[in-house]
């Protein structure tokens, strides 16, 4: 196999940019939602829980269509964003990032929520008696103890984002250089008569990427666990 071409590198870089940006933006929200779902009972909690999990069970095309309706230039949220902030998501790489964030969100929330629920809450009570405010307890006790779940959730969501196809192609279409991520590029090559070789090359890149992501996940999780069981200095 010859080294990747400039076009392939561009596709790969775009995929990483879209998935990375989506994870970066959705992580704080996911932590907040996971914390709320793990710790509080509030009216409409079941509904929030259902909405968060919806992308996991809906056909991705439906999610993409919903995003198009809501965030499209004429959509209620999309037109508002355009008018007040000049932000346009439809047919832009940021829209692809939104689609991948929405699709990865349930995986992220689930992993973080489980690890928050596993924390012995009496540790937080102990921290309070030692003089820590609620907010400081969150940052010094709760989040560090939830770190394995946060790492797992982030990588699951990242992997989901790199593989995202249905919602992306529906919402932001398949524009080379703007929204054409790895899966979309592979799909495009399979649609032309002589594209099999190209599709195969990109597939190999996808496999390598997945292996790297998995290995990183393993390494980070082990590191996070070691933080909790070993000396830090």
């Amino acid at each position: 196999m010859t080294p990747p071409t400039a076009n392939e590198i561009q596709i790969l870089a775009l995929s990483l940019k879209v998935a990375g940006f989506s994870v970066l933006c959705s992580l704080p929200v996911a932590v907040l939602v996971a914390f709320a779902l793990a710790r509080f009972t509030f009216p409409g909690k079941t509904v929030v829980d259902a909405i968060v999990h919806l992308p996991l069970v809906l056909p991705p095309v439906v999610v993409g269509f919903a995003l198009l309706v809501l965030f499209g230039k004429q959509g209620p949220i999309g037109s508002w964003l355009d008018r007040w902030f000049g932000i346009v998501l439809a047919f832009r790489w940021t829209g692809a990032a939104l689609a991948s964030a929405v699709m990865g969100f349930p995986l992220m929330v689930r992993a973080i929520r489980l690890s928050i629920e596993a924390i012995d809450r009496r540790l937080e009570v102990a921290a309070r008696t030692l003089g820590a405010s609620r907010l400081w307890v969150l940052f010094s006790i709760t989040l560090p103890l939830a770190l394995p779940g946060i790492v797992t959730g982030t990588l699951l969501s990242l992997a989901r984002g790199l593989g995202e196809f249905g919602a992306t192609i529906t919402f932001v279409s398949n524009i080379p250089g703007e929204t054409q991520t790895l899966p979309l590029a592979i799909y495009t090559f399979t649609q032309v008569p002589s594209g099999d070789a190209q599709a195969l090359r990109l597939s190999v890149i996808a496999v390598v990427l997945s292996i790297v992501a998995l290995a990183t996940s393993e390494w980070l999780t082990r590191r996070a666990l070691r933080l909790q069981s070993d000396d830090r200095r």
Partner: protein
Amino acid sequence: MIDVDVEERLGAFRLDVKFAVEAPIVGLFGRSGSGKTSVVNAIAGIGRPHRGRIRINGDVLFDSDRGIDVPPDRRRVGYVFQDALLFPHLDVESNLTYGQRLRSAAERVISQDRVVDLLGLANVLRRTPQTLSGGEKQRVAIGRALLAQPRILLMDEPLASLDVPRSVEILDYIERLRHELAIPIVFVSHSVAQITRLADTVVVLADGKCLAVGDVEDVMGRPDLRPATGRYEAGSIIDAEVVAHQAALGLTTLAFDGGELRVPELDVSVGKRLRVRIRARDVSLALTRPPDISILNVLPGSVASIDDDAGRIIDLTIAVGAARISARITRYSHNELRIEPGRNVFVLVKAVSFDQRSVGYAGAGHP
């Protein structure tokens, strides 16, 4: 001064406790489910009582009438939990300093070096909680609470998850705290042995109510409290000083207001003060000084009072110098010796009836 008056409803359980005590170590005694933990939680600010008032040294921490409920992080109440609850993601040193970091420099009266030295933690500072033994964990938990510079230290059954040697070790450390630091301790326990060993004043709880408050020996010996205190071994506590060691004989001599006691050799230096507990049933009486006897402690005294509840067993208090020693004898012996108030008797106590658990270190420092 610890002033507690709280009412709380937890499901079917009703807590309605009122007491005011002042002592270096206050024992909060009661069986499980009597409301001990609810009381210390209320003092620490964990959960909110239905009604009441809590004051420590005059500072109001909670007052339902005036709408005051100081949050736990601003109460400065140290809390040592039953199972240590060390932070698993921090090493021992970071655990110790967790609360200290949140105090201003001016508030840091108890230094880290002092705590490390007092609790013998120098060798475990870099370890993680998971690698510590139960006793070490509890010592770190005590140190962590102390470094948060509390005005009072609450200990909820701190020995419950430890084996006997570890418990004895922690008891020794707690006694060191009593004398080295001027922080009142509320020690929660369902164990008569621990309460009598440590506490000066005891609060007895049963079914969410406060049954009695007072001096440990007075309260724990009261027959009317027996349903709550259980089969309590009546006895007396004597403050004594180590005057000599006789290594060749394997004995240590202690002096108190009323004479000397010989006990199996202790690892405590001469001049140190001790609290010695003598169980009433370990005390025998004689009208004349018995010759050729294995009992090493024979002390002249006189009968001060007789507690006769018309049963087969009679509790006596014997004045030996300024000290009072309780004795428990049968009605038969009572009649045989013609015991009556003021009668001169010899108090006989076997040296072996003093075990490690009944000898507390009341002096500054440690063996």
